[in-house]
């Protein structure tokens, strides 16, 4: 039976080439966009590369101080003083790191200005984030504490300053300071912003240590648990220590708010910036799902219409099948299967288009250093989309058709 259904499905697709083209176009383009978006979201929430331990770490990237609860406030990145006071004494994390946010620095080569993003980090940063070293090593605890002028640079920065020759031990001058290159790492996508930079130097490589007294501004913290299960305990401890933290000027700024977030919570915070309330991860999840469903709905409705016309053309076949004992369920199965075959073909085309687009986006540098990946979760999303299309766009027409009166169907009078 299956052989006959598949055979018939392929014949019908060949017979109505324009319908088939429109259907396949709808399915493949929608799937391509969904795959691109899913891959992008997936890549941010479960990043590969340097942030691959993201299930174990929390990031502290925003804080606010306020005159009273709900009163006038200042909101920015945390400062070194705050992070040092709150996260360094923590007991639940296996590792804690304080590092600066990216700042733009310029260097010159052959009279040409090269702009780079620089981060100042401690040594634990290299243990939490798993950079892939092409050559060399990260800076040690001693080098970080002593503020030695050493630097780890990205593959792209190495190429810009030193062409294809080894960058190790060479001197790199950026922002008026010179550093000895001790390591070269693979480029990090700008979307992995905990890790992303072009140049990393020790926190204290800067002559001024004034930043150590600043409560707010310019820094981020990472705290990493031994296992993903311990992350919530780590979060509780962070909240307790945060509650106990007092601003150096407590009369003026009695309220200090901040949060330690997972990757997904970090994204949720981008859209809902109120640090007082928990991150709206549920709302973000619902938002993503609803957007995707709405995005898929239009082509699905289009496909439903196409399928109804396509099925009505086959009224006589439906009449014959019913006359010879086909039940509605047989007909629904047949037409649903035909539609799933169509959507699977569209799925394969969409998948190929998505791979092509991912390649071109990666090569074009629209999202610097970002390389798309298709993993199990993205694949699962693709299969769900194909089934969504196949069942919804085929189900209703199949149901409608299965209820046709066989006499009318045989006459072709629907």
């Amino acid at each position, binding site marked *: *039976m299956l*052989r*006959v259904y598949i*055979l*018939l499905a392929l*014949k*019908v697709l060949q*017979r109505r080439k324009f319908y088939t083209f429109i259907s396949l176009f709808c399915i493949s383009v929608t799937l391509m966009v969904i795959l691109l978006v899913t891959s992008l979201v997936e890549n941010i929430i479960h990043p590969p590369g340097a942030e691959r331990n993201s299930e174990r770490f929390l990031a502290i990237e925003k804080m606010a101080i306020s005159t009273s609860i709900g009163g006038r406030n200042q909101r920015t990145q945390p400062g070194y003083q705050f992070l040092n006071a709150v996260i360094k004494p923590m007991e639940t994390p296996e590792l804690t790191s304080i590092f600066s946010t990216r700042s733009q620095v310029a260097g010159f080569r052959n009279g040409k200005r090269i702009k780079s993003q620089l981060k100042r980090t401690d040594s634990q940063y290299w243990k939490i984030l798993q950079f892939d070293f092409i050559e060399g090593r990260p800076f040690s605890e001693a080098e970080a504490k002593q503020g030695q002028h050493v630097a780890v640079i990205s593959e792209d920065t190495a190429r810009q300053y030193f062409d294809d020759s080894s960058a190790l031990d060479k001197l790199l001058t950026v922002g008026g300071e010179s550093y000895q290159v001790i390591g070269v790492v693979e480029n990090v996508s700008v979307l992995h912003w905990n890790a992303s930079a072009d140049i990393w130097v020790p926190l204290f490589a800067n002559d001024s240590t004034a930043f150590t007294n600043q409560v707010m501004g310019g820094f981020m913290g990472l705290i990493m648990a031994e296992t993903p299960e311990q992350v919530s305990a780590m979060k509780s401890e962070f909240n307790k220590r945060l509650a106990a933290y007092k601003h150096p000027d407590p009369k003026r700024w009695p309220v200090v708010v901040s949060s330690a977030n997972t990757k997904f919570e970090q994204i949720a915070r981008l859209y809902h910036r109120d640090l007082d309330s928990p991150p709206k991860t549920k709302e973000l999840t619902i938002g993503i799902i609803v957007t995707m469903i709405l995005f898929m709905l239009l082509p699905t409705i289009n496909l439903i219409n196409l399928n109804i016309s396509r099925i009505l053309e086959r009224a*006589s*076949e439906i*009449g*014959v*099948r*019913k*006359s*010879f*004992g*086909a*039940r*509605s369920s*047989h007909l629904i199965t047949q037409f649903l299967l035909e539609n799933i075959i169509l959507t699977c073909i569209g799925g394969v085309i969409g998948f190929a288009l998505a791979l092509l687009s991912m390649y071109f986006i990666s090569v074009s540098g629209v999202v610097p250093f970002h390389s798309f990946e298709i993993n199990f979760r993205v694949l699962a999303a693709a299969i769900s989309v194909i089934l969504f299309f196949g069942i919804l766009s085929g189900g209703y027409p199949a149901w409608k058709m299965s209820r046709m009166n*066989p*006499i009318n169907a*045989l006459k072709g009078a629907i």
Partner: protein
Amino acid sequence: MIRIERGKKSYRTDTIQTTALNDVSLHIKKGEFVSIMGPSGCGKSTLMNIIGLLDKPCEGQIYIDDQKIESYNDKSIAPIRNEKIGFIFQSFHLINDLSVLDNVELPLLYRKISAKERRRLALEAIDKVSLNARAKHFPNQLSGGQQQRVAIARAIVGKPKILLADEPTGNLDSAMGNEIMAILDDLHKNDKTTIVMVTHDDEKAQRTERIIRLFDGQLVN
């Protein structure tokens, strides 16, 4: 084999009600070859549709193979259509995308039998209508007569007790029409199949055992 007791069927539109069958009682015995005749619009097709369980009478009772038809829902009616009745239509109604063999196999798709057995039975039915050489052809590669023979093979592949033929020769020239009649005669004589045939052709009707005449939805003696 087929019994209709006081069968009535009328169709209602917004403004008028048309009676297609009016108090028709009919008994067709097992193995009988019966033709139904009458002018256009007299209710022949309605009667056939009611016998074939494609349509439900407004009143009256139907018995197929001594089984009273109580319910017309899909679940109860589909197996009777599949196992006891075979249809032959005036315009063949073959599926052009399927080969002769696949067309003939169609009624067996709705039975729980293996693909191998389906193929064997289909080839046997094709052999009965002498189309073995055409089994892999498609309907549009065949003449009208050959197409109707395929339709007969499809109707008999499941070995139904009743064959319902709605003007089976209506779209064929006389030579092809005679071929089809010969096949029906053979099925009646050798397989003892009960055949009900609607026809306009008096000569063809004369070849059957009994002629049922309809006029204005009623039986005429």
